[in-house]
């Protein structure tokens, strides 16, 4: 019986471990091995015969004076800016909506259902609709901005050129804020009403209640939420891919698309894998740093 007891947790973990090994960990290791090879179309057919190149793929990727490294660095920069803005805005909108819908009012249930729609629509559907709306000549966005509101002089482009960054950001925020809203709505329900009552007795107004009670109570939820949003947004492939196709405009050249282009479109899987490994290392570093920092802060507050 005791042996069974000891083995039990491992038995329970076994399916999860097996799935993770097969789908995530082993392919990941294989991918890392590929990054050390010169895996172009000449060797793709029998890739174990591809020549080892050591760290050459990595050197090319981080040689920021040469165009390949330069392009990767640019793409990395775009991705960072995009991620920070998208996560920030999604979080802000999600928090605002969650706080404003904390008290019951007429139509709240309906509105909450509406707010969750973007999260429930399949990615392809949602993004292709945005592509349709962002078309310059026949799209809804320019129709409203230019024809109806006369806000802009000439119809701007959204799917090419510099504005494509804002188009991408809009779609990304539209898709991810409902998740933030949902999580935070849940988080708010755990705050005891007495806290607010006590604060109100002390003469605290709405804004002070939000600042002193709501936001601090949400901190543990936020820690998880922001991290999850960050990882999703940073690695998001579907949104830019459906929005711009295989060749994203420079201003919206997210790293996932960039790596896709470097491996699948130009058939250099060694280089693509090396870039992915670098990306993974970066994400691990950021996540570790984030967890340490937020945990320390939480510790300091307690």
């Amino acid at each position, binding site marked *: 019986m005791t042996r069974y007891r000891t083995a*039990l947790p491992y038995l329970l973990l076994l399916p999860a471990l097996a799935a993770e090994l097969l789908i995530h960990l082993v392919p*990941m290791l294989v991918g890392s091995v590929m990054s050390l090879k010169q895996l172009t179309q000449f060797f793709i057919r029998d890739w174990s015969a591809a020549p080892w190149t050591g760290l050459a793929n990595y050197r090319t990727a981080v040689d920021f004076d040469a165009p390949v490294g330069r392009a990767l660095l640019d793409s990395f920069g775009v991705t960072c800016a995009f991620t920070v803005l998208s996560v920030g805005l999604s979080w802000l909108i999600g928090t605002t*909506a969650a706080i404003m819908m904390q008290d019951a009012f007429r139509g709240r249930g309906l509105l909450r259902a509406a707010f969750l729609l*973007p999260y429930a629509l399949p990615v392809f*559907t*949602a993004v292709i609709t945005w592509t349709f709306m962002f078309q310059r000549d026949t799209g809804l966005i320019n129709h409203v901005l230019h024809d109806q509101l006369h806000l802009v002089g000439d119809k701007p482009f959204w799917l090419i050129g510099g504005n494509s960054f804002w188009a991408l950001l809009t779609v990304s925020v539209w898709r991810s804020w409902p998740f933030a809203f949902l999580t935070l709505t849940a*988080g708010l329900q755990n705050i005891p009403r007495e806290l607010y009552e006590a604060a109100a007795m002390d003469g605290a107004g709405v804004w002070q209640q939000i600042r002193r009670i709501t936001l601090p109570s949400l901190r543990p939820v936020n820690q998880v939420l922001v991290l999850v949003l960050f990882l999703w947004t940073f690695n998001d492939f579907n949104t830019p891919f459906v929005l711009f196709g295989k060749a994203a405009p420079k201003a919206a050249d997210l790293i996932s698309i960039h790596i896709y282009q470097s491996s699948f479109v130009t058939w250099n899987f060694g280089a693509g894998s090396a870039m992915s490994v670098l*990306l993974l290392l970066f994400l691990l570093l950021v996540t570790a740093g984030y967890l340490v920092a937020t945990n320390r802060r939480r510790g300091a507050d307690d």
Partner: protein
Amino acid sequence: MIDPPASFRWLRRAVLLVLAVFTLTPVAVMLSSSLKPLQDVQGPWRWIPSHPTLRPYVDIWTTVPLARYFTNSLIVAGSATGLSVLIALLAGYAVSRHRFRGRRLFTVTVLSTQMFPGILFLLPLFLIFVSIGNSTGIALYGSRGGLILTYLTFSLPFSIWMLAGYLDSIPRDLDEAASVDGCGPIRTLVQIVVPAAMPGIIAVAVYAFMTAWGEVLFASVLTNDETRTLAVGLQGYATQTDVYWNQVMAASLVVSLPVVAGFLLLQRYLVAGLTAGAVK
């Protein structure tokens, strides 16, 4: 909040109105476009269709085998969800209720897989599927099984994380009482823990379903015509000669309807579930 002043209420109305417009505009666009003939859709934007037609809703079934893609998606996403929840529940239960060597390593490893860029392991995964097929005869490439396995794993890290947190918040007295009554650990899990954790399980299920339902990249390489899922199949409305915008929108609405309906039915469980999981 206590006694929000009138100014706050007005602000609230304004903000929520703007948000509702932002959120619902694309849905309105889908609805309007799906009722137009293709030539009108390709022309300048109009809110109200000038030649309203239901034709796109008829054509969607013949332009691509929509019914088959829909069935595939339901089977794949449904099975991946069921299995993912089951596996995550077992793992989450182990992590939450047992102290054992390697526990921390397990949670950290599983969590870190959430960070893997899909593009890195797409090709290796494909090669592994094929070689498993060649050496054992189990067809993972091109089959729904392979895709189910892939998707259930995609949602595992977050699901285990959420469920472990949720189970932590369920008082241990419950299990202990059960084990005093002579229940083994598995019976305790099934009879006591699962019912108590139902909201958390629903939350994880919705998350797992959405993950599998919308995935494009892996599905485009791991499926064939027979097993293609909706997320990829909908691209069939963009053909060599034309993009059938009106049909894409109509098809999207049709296939989303059941999902959205189910999702909305479950949303209150999701709210309750996330609370406990995230607050841990």
